[in-house]
């Protein structure tokens, strides 16, 4: 008899918070809203910690069924929760980082309208994300998957009066739908071939199947499509940079730390299938590697601090996919975790910077902030070092693990490794570029604004503060920064001696021991990646500290290529030309004018018209005269009697 951990409470607690704030929050004071939101989110975190504490004594995987959901014939999908090492890690990351970001949001959003709405959405997101993570079957996972998309849509469009925010929300939703389409078809395939969506049953059947490439490859590729949508990989990454229209804590929580990693989690969860579909796996690795490189190059030229971080996120997600693609799932998850720490921190710190300079997001108008906001500076520094892969910081361990696996894994190759290292160089470069531009040199913004709002104030929704000038953020925002900074530093240490990998080993059924003694090449490769990171640091130092006029010269020298990179390779324009415009044209001509107006509307109109014409002739029956009605009834009764007698005489 396994103990009942009441896993269902973990997702449901934030749901209650969301419901309370969403339904009643309008009447609440801000303090009450905060109390409700933090209490339920914190309770979920506490539950997660309790579960983690008891985890050692459990037989993993631990499955708890709350209630039956769909039971049709042999097909069963229940409200059931699945706890193993993988979901435990995700659970802790989601609740922990989520809780910190909730705290941060209190300070960040305090002045905003729709305060209760924000926290209601945030809690709703937590509910769906936890459902996704804890689901014991693909269908429930899909609910969470769709739900986080919904929460993401709502939060990107939080300032829905702003056109760009509303458009970004729609874009995120629609692009995600394309991915969900692939995911859904994968689910249908599973139902058709395995008759179930429960992880245990599906994986059990897959394991017995041996290598049947066709089916598994299609399922794997379709799952990859889904993951690409959710995790912003090529070709479906375009929504993520736009999603920065949302409030910064949202960017941190949803579009950096948790939701976008759902794709990675899903691929890792489905590793049984991918392991038997080498082609699909190769696709994962290639998508990951290319996305990492591609997004990193764009990141170099961005000037919006949040956009840089957004492309950096895409790039880092590419790393995770690369890790999964070479069957180094635990490395991918490891990077997922450390990334959640340092990227969450980067966004929060960026939010703090934006907060400090009064809503400005353009790095060219910052500079020299080191002295003025020291807490933000130091935490940001920790995160930058972590993402750049400076040894000792969290990012180093996880990224290095991925690079090593990319080279050494049976599925890997030196090409992946080379791309990875080059990307690491670029990452280091653009992160330090951000660092130097923001914190060093002279302040280039307008001097001492009288009042400032947040990042949306440009859209004409100013939220004036009573105090002017560049200033440090309140403590409630700094505390999460500090905690995450500590985690960004030490979070990677659990990867030393493959502790983390060994912890996850039961899930991924892979022997971690094989890598332990391969000391020689690993050290060499590690050295190269460290060198790449340091080179990036040096280049950034050279270009943005020592000789600030140099970037313009280089840009001028590169000419067209620079413009292409600055404009994100014209991908959005390409998509607009290739897909959006034809789609709109087809929809307008065929579906709207053709089918909707000429067939559907016409059918409705004509049937209405026909009904009216028939009624015109029949309505004389309804004369309003009681006795006429009685006459009709009598005549009808006579017909019935005649019929019955006739039938009886047969």
């Amino acid at each position, binding site marked *: 008899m396994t103990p009942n951990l009441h896993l269902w409470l973990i997702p449901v607690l934030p749901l209650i918070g969301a419901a309370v704030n969403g339904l009643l929050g309008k009447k609440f004071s801000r303090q009450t809203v905060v109390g409700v939101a933090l209490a339920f989110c914190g309770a979920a975190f506490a539950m997660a910690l309790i579960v983690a504490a008891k985890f050692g004594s459990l037989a993993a995987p631990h499955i708890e069924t709350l209630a039956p959901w769909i039971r049709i014939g042999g097909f069963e999908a229940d409200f059931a929760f699945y706890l193993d090492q993988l979901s435990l890690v995700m659970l802790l990351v989601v609740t922990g980082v989520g809780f910190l970001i909730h705290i941060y949001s209190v300070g960040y959003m305090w002045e905003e309208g729709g305060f209760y709405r924000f926290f209601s959405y945030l809690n709703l997101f937590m509910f769906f994300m936890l459902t996704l993570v804890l689901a014991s079957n693909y269908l429930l996972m899909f609910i969470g998957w769709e739900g986080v998309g919904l929460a993401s849509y709502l939060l990107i469009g939080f300032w829905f009066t702003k056109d760009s925010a509303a458009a970004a929300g729609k874009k995120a939703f629609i692009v995600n739908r394309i991915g969900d389409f692939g995911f859904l078809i994968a689910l249908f395939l599973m139902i058709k071939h395995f008759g179930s969506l429960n992880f245990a049953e599906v994986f059990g059947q897959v394991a017995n199947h041996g290598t049947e490439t066709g089916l598994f490859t299609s399922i794997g590729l379709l799952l990859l499509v889904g993951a690409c949508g959710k995790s912003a990989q090529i070709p479906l990454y375009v929504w993520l940079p736009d999603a920065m229209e949302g409030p910064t804590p949202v960017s941190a929580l949803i579009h950096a730390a948790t939701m976008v990693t759902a794709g990675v989690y899903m691929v890792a969860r489905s590793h049984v299938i991918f392991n038997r579909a080498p082609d699909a796996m190769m696709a994962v690795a290639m998508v990951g590697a290319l996305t990492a490189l591609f997004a990193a190059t764009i990141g170099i030229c961005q000037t919006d601090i949040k956009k840089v971080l957004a492309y950096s996120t895409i790039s880092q997600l590419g790393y995770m996919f690369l890790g999964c693609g070479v069957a180094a799932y635990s490395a991918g998850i490891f990077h997922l975790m450390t990334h959640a720490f340092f990227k969450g921190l980067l966004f929060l710190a960026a939010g703090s910077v934006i907060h400090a300079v009064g809503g400005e997001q353009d790095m060219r108008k910052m500079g020299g902030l080191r002295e003025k906001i020291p807490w933000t500076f130091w935490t940001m520094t920790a995160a930058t070092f972590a993402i750049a892969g400076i040894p000792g910081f969290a990012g180093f361990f996880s990224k290095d693990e991925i690079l090593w696996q990319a080279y050494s894994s049976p599925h890997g190759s030196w090409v992946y490794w080379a791309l990875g290292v080059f990307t690491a160089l670029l990452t280091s470069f653009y992160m330090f570029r951000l660092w130097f531009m923001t914190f060093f040199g002279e302040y280039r913004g307008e001097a001492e604004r009288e009042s400032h709002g947040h990042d949306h104030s440009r859209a004409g929704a100013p939220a004036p503060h009573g105090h002017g000038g560049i200033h440090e953020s309140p403590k409630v925002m700094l505390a999460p920064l500090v905690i995450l900074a500590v985690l960004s530093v030490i979070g990677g240490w659990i990867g030393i001696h493959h502790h983390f990998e060994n912890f996850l080993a039961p899930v991924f059924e892979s022997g971690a021991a094989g890598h332990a003694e391969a000391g020689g090449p690993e050290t060499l490769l590690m050295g190269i990646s460290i060198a790449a990171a340091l080179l990036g640091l040096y280049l950034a130092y050279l270009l943005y500290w020592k000789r600030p006029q140099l970037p313009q010269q280089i840009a001028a020298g590169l000419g067209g290529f620079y413009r292409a990179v600055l404009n994100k390779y014209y991908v959005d324009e390409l998509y607009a030309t290739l897909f959006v415009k034809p789609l709109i044209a087809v929809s307008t001509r065929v579906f709207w004018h053709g089918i909707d107006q000429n067939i559907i509307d016409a059918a409705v109109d004509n049937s209405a018209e026909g009904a009216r014409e028939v009624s015109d002739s029949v309505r004389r*029956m309804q*004369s309003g*005269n009681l*006795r*006429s009605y*009685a*006459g*009709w*009834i*009598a*005549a*009808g*009764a*006579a*017909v019935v*009697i*005649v019929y019955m*007698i006739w039938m009886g005489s047969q």
Partner: protein
Amino acid sequence: MLHLVLFSVFGLICVAGAVNLLAQRHPINSALSLVVVMGALSAEYLLLGAEFVAAVQVIVYAGAIMVLFVFVIMLLNAGVEERTGGSRVALLFGVPGMLIGSLLVAWVLLHRSGTEAVSIGALPGPPRIIGWLLFHDFLLPFEVTSILVLIAIMGAVVLAAKPPSAAPPKREG
């Protein structure tokens, strides 16, 4: 023989009353004809042995429901029926339909149903057993009917009560 005579006498009274109901132009005469029909029917029930039904028929139908009709006729001071242009539908379809229907039913009753006779006082319906049936086999219908009556009472009160605003009744064209 006696049975048949009694049946015929009361049956004729019934039919005469019913026809008189149709023939009379003043509603109060029709109402009294209906009372006569009900009284005669009560006698028919007695012939069938349903003494309790007969008594209740007199008390409820003749003694209460029809009093209500008479009361309303008096209250509204209903006069002789007007001869207005009737409904052609009622005459063209209704009456022939009714005639066809009744003739067919009569034909079927006389030719198709067996010739089993019902003896006088065939099935005594003592109140005790009827009450037992009502409160055991028909308990649910009984309770539902009681709710129906309650609703009807409230509905009647609401409908017949004068509207609170003592506005004069609207005269519509």
